[in-house]
């Protein structure tokens, strides 16, 4: 009975404050409390032309160009895009395809910069110390041109979220310091060491979006960070309507939509942005980057990276320049031999497994984990049949039914998978984590989503082709009619004998056909 009552109480508790489901993976925060260290500079930097969600950038530099740190080297294309900047001073040596962080192991165009070792900065952006008097649009443009995208790992261009919308005024800014992935501690350490800078960033964002209140969300396994942030808040008179919320440690507490629900009880409607419920959510690292962009005029050229994993000789929280290769960063912490090692980009729950360490650090590199081959393999044993235990739907933070959805994806019944809300899956991996049959549910969902996208692309292409084909048909018919009309006019003028006319017509039309086909 008590067990049942506890379960019942938990369920009721969840309804009151907390998202549906969730899991408790081993935290393994090896680097908790380790001070941030600077990763040494390297001779070569590789900057992939797409590091955010959205359109890839177009390079603005050519081979042989000298660049300064922070200089714009690629411009944004389209709305959902942000520019890229040189991570150090040096010379552009080549622009070509290179493997990047991607599950396919495929390559994309990258700008290669050979460092000159001087690390000279581009100071062309002025410091906006008077940001309180500046218009939100000016600050927003600054955030965009500094290349800032969500540094919690999603890398959605930040400026897009920083809007003042009359219809949906933003009341609350949520600063996300949850960091619920195992191993990762960079947000944690940033709150401990740079609380003031983070709060400055928060103040700037609140000014930009006109938010009245703010919440700094921290999981209860980081009580020291909560203490430090509370203290910093107490010393900051500007942020009177900001408070620290300590939430129970539960994965994926840090997922934007789940976090908003935990804090406010509001659900972001499917397919909408949080601003539809008057909330915006920013990662603590993003807030710090916004602060640097506005107060110091510094574009995004570095980020904090947790370098860890069970095969990592000397784990650390590092400040790493974007563009350094993983191989180089690992080597700084004593890992040079990658035999029997699996590299994960990000945390173990949502990170990508990389095949080679020669890819560069990018804006989404929240963590670089070196794992023992066996550890990763144990998480991916052979799939067994689903016993329908329902643990996946109990764990799902989006309240989906993963096992049934996976069946539909596997059987290519994509319409049914969509009807089961496939596109509300946030791919957090909680379902696969609890599955006793080791079914790679997330991969089935990614497969389904990919296939649906591909089918849509093909359908749109076919539709466009059909329209062009029809248009061409219509044009040919029109041309033919015009030709025929012209000819008959000419013939009338010449006034030939009626019997001869018929034969010519037949001949002509045969010729026409031959010409067309």
């Amino acid at each position, binding site marked *: 009975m008590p*067990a*049942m009552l506890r*379960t*019942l109480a938990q369920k009721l508790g969840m309804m009151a404050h907390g*998202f*549906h489901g969730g899991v408790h*993976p081993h935290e393994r925060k090896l680097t908790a409390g380790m001070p941030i260290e600077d990763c040494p500079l390297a001779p070569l930097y590789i900057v992939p032309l797409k590091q955010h969600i959205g359109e890839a950038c177009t390079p603005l530099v050519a081979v042989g160009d000298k660049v300064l740190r922070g200089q714009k080297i690629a411009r944004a294309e389209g709305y959902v895009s942000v520019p890229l900047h040189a991570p150090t001073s040096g010379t552009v040596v080549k622009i070509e395809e290179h493997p990047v962080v991607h*599950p*396919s*192991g495929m390559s994309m165009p990258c700008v290669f910069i050979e460092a000159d070792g001087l690390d000279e900065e581009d100071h062309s952006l002025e410091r906006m110390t008077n940001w309180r008097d500046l218009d939100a649009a000016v600050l927003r443009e600054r955030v965009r041109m500094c290349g800032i995208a969500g540094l919690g790992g999603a890398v959605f261009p930040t400026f897009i979220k920083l809007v003042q919308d009359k219809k949906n005024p933003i009341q609350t800014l949520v600063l996300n310091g949850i960091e619920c992935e*195992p191993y990762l501690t960079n947000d944690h350490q940033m709150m401990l060491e740079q609380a003031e800078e983070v709060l400055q960033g928060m103040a700037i964002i609140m000014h930009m979006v006109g938010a009245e209140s703010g919440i700094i969300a921290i999981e209860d396994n980081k009580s020291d960070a909560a203490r430090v942030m509370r203290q910093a808040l107490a010393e900051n008179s500007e942020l009177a309507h900001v408070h620290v919320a300590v939430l129970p440690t539960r994965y994926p507490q840090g997922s934007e*939509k789940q976090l908003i629900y935990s804090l406010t*009880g*509001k*659900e*972001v409607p*499917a*397919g*909408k942005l949080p601003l539809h419920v008057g909330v915006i959510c920013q990662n603590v690292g993003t807030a710090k980057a916004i602060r640097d962009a506005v107060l110091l005029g510094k574009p995004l050229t570095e980020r904090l990276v947790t370098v860890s994993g069970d095969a990592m000789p000397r784990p650390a929280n590092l400040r790493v320049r974007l563009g350094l290769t993983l191989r180089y960063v690992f080597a700084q912490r004593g890992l040079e031999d990658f035999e029997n090692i*699996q590299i994960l980009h*990000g945390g*173990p*729950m*949502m*990170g*990508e*497994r990389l*095949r080679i360490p020669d890819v560069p650090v990018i804006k989404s590199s929240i963590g670089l984990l070196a*794992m023992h081959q066996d550890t*990763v393999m*144990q*998480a991916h044993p052979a799939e*067994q*049949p*689903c*016993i*329908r235990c*329902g*643990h996946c*739907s*109990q764990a799902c*933070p*989006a*309240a989906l*039914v993963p*096992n*049934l959805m996976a069946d539909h994806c596997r059987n290519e019944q994509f319409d049914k998978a969509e009807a089961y*809300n496939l596109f*509300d899956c946030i*791919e957090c*991996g909680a379902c696969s*984590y*609890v*599955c*006793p*049959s*080791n079914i790679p549910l*997330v*991969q089935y969902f*990614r497969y389904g989503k990919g296939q649906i996208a591909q089918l849509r692309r093909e359908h749109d292409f076919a539709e466009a082709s059909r329209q062009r084909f029809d248009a061409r048909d219509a044009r040919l018919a029109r041309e033919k009619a015009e030709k025929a009309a012209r000819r008959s006019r000419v013939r009338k003028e010449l006034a030939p004998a009626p019997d001869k006319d018929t034969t010519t017509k037949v001949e002509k039309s045969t010729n026409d056909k031959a010409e067309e086909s």
Partner: protein
Amino acid sequence: MSLAISSPHAHGGDTIRMTMLTVIIALLPAAMVSVYLFGWLAVFLIVACMLSCLLTEAVCLRMMGRPLKTLLDNSAALTGLFLALTLPASIPWWMAVLGSVFAIVLGKQVYGGLGYNLFNPALSARVILLISFPLGMTSWLIPMHVGPSALNMYDFSAALAFFLHGPEALKLGLDAITMASPLGHVKTEWTQGIGVAEALNSYHYSYLDAFLGREAGSIGETSALALLIGGIYLLARHTITWHIPFAYIGTVLLLAAVFSVISPEHYSPPMFHLFAGGLILCAFFMATDPVSSPVTPLGQIVFGIGCGVLTWAIRTFGGYPEGAMFAVVLMNCAVPLIDHYCRPRAYGHGGS
């Protein structure tokens, strides 16, 4: 090289094998009570069912060209234990073996093996046995410590002879060693126009005995206490959730309460329903069998209510005194439909 493996790259460590083992452990108290009540006969029955289930599963796996190590998932062993606990101690060995073969072949493997079966394998086998051998499946031995019986089931050789050759081997008449189950007794009396209270009286029915398990019935279903201990263990281990057992038992209690208040002479009281027959065994162990029960919480509640209504209805109006297994098997058919219509409201779809 095109091999892409998706996150998560961590796993909680749950396995099918452990899940099944947890259920087996949860059934141990009930199994121990069955040995206490039916001596060696219970041991023989459990061993015979488990072994023949494992053997049948091995043969099936072999025939289908699947790896034999699948046996280690414990599902066949669990099916055997389940089946044994739902059988009367009086049945001959071949009936137990036949039931085990039914359970594995017709209950599970013909559908494609573990995870694909529509019905609970053990229960479907038990239903087949009950329909095929109505007499053998409803002769309840007088348990030890309950009443005077001509059969000493603690005597190894006597029990073995009974198990292998039936009562004739010991020159025992069935009447001297069997008794009616409470449900059966009430049903029989009712057909002769005797009311529920009087029937219970003539049976010397005691709620305490029923709770502890000192009554006639299938070997594993008699003790509510032992089953509840196992059920709570399953809940505590999160192997099952509260939805099915509570909806199921709650529905039976509610219906029984309402009707026994309306007409106590016609309808058995709720507590009698609770302790009698296989209700608790079915509610905590059979209806919660993951493969053949709904996945979603709401679906599980609907399923539990359906089981409850059917159990009570079959017991009250049906030709068979006990309806729990029929109820579960019938509701198993409805599971795909229930699952489709009882999906939880996904995040961001309606609601506040």
